[in-house]
């Protein structure tokens, strides 16, 4: 039989996650005033990925979800990876080889 217990996270946890998201939002705005060249993008993306992870794990209850649901979540990331990597393999390598006659 499937165990009949819905995980109820404590309110305290939600408050902590919200405050963390708030601090990270100010941080991501703050770092744009520091010139890091191309690394500004990677810092901004890193913060966004961390914020998204907090939302998925705690607000969306991924931490306590059944294993099957967790596999679906990770598989959706795999498909995004396929979309991105196959497209970049084309677009971002077009200048690497010389084309005769051009």
């Amino acid at each position, binding site marked *: *039989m499937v165990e009949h217990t819905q995980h109820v996270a404590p309110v305290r946890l*939600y*408050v902590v996650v919200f405050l963390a998201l708030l601090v990270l*939002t100010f941080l*991501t705005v703050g770092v*744009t005033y520091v010139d890091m060249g191309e690394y500004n993008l990677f810092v*901004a993306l890193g913060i966004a990925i961390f914020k998204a992870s907090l939302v998925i794990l705690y607000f969306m209850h991924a931490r306590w979800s059944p294993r099957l649901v967790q596999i679906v979540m990770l598989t959706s990331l795999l498909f995004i990876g396929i979309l991105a990597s196959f497209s970049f393999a084309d677009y971002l390598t077009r200048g690497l080889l010389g084309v005769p006659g051009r």
Partner: protein
Amino acid sequence: MHSPDAISHARLQHHFDTLEQQQQASTLGMWLFLATELLFFGGMFLAYTLYRAWYPDAWVAASHHLDVFWGAFNTVALILSSFTMAMAVHAAQTGSRQGQIVFLVLTMALGTVFLGVKAMEYADKFDHHLVPGPGFLFDDPRYARAAQIFFSVYFAMTGVHALHMVIGLGLLLWLLAGARRGTFTAEYNTPVEMVGLYWHFVDIIWIFLFPLLYLVGHH
């Protein structure tokens, strides 16, 4: 056939044994739907990435026409609404009808604030001729063409995101009606949980849109 230990409940569909099983099936279906949503937005994020790689300088110049303050303000409004949504789900899980109503109304209010700010920002773009089309004008002629591509991507992504917000507000209104009738309890709260997943997903999309559109380059 119901298993002998099945808990009889008005909301239990006949093809499920227990409410727990029913909720897990809904959760799986919702995440599969969100996977398709992720790929839907993924195509636009991909277009964004390619154009940014092709026109990095124009991207910085065009992005500086967006107001960081209002972008950050809306980010705070959305993460606060995600928090109140999580609290609405919590209220349903603990059987608090009053809590559900309060937190659903707060979530809707914050969602409305977000859309109001978005409408104001869009109006500002129309005023400054930054809407792609024949009337598009850009102060730096070197970047005029690529800046128009930036604003096409901006309106497509934020527009589709805003459409998701409007749909989310409709779903919240539907939940609010149910919560007022006392439909959702500690035993049965699947709709609240599922709309919560949708709302958080829309929040996550914005978490990426904000730095990618408003915070390009060094300020």
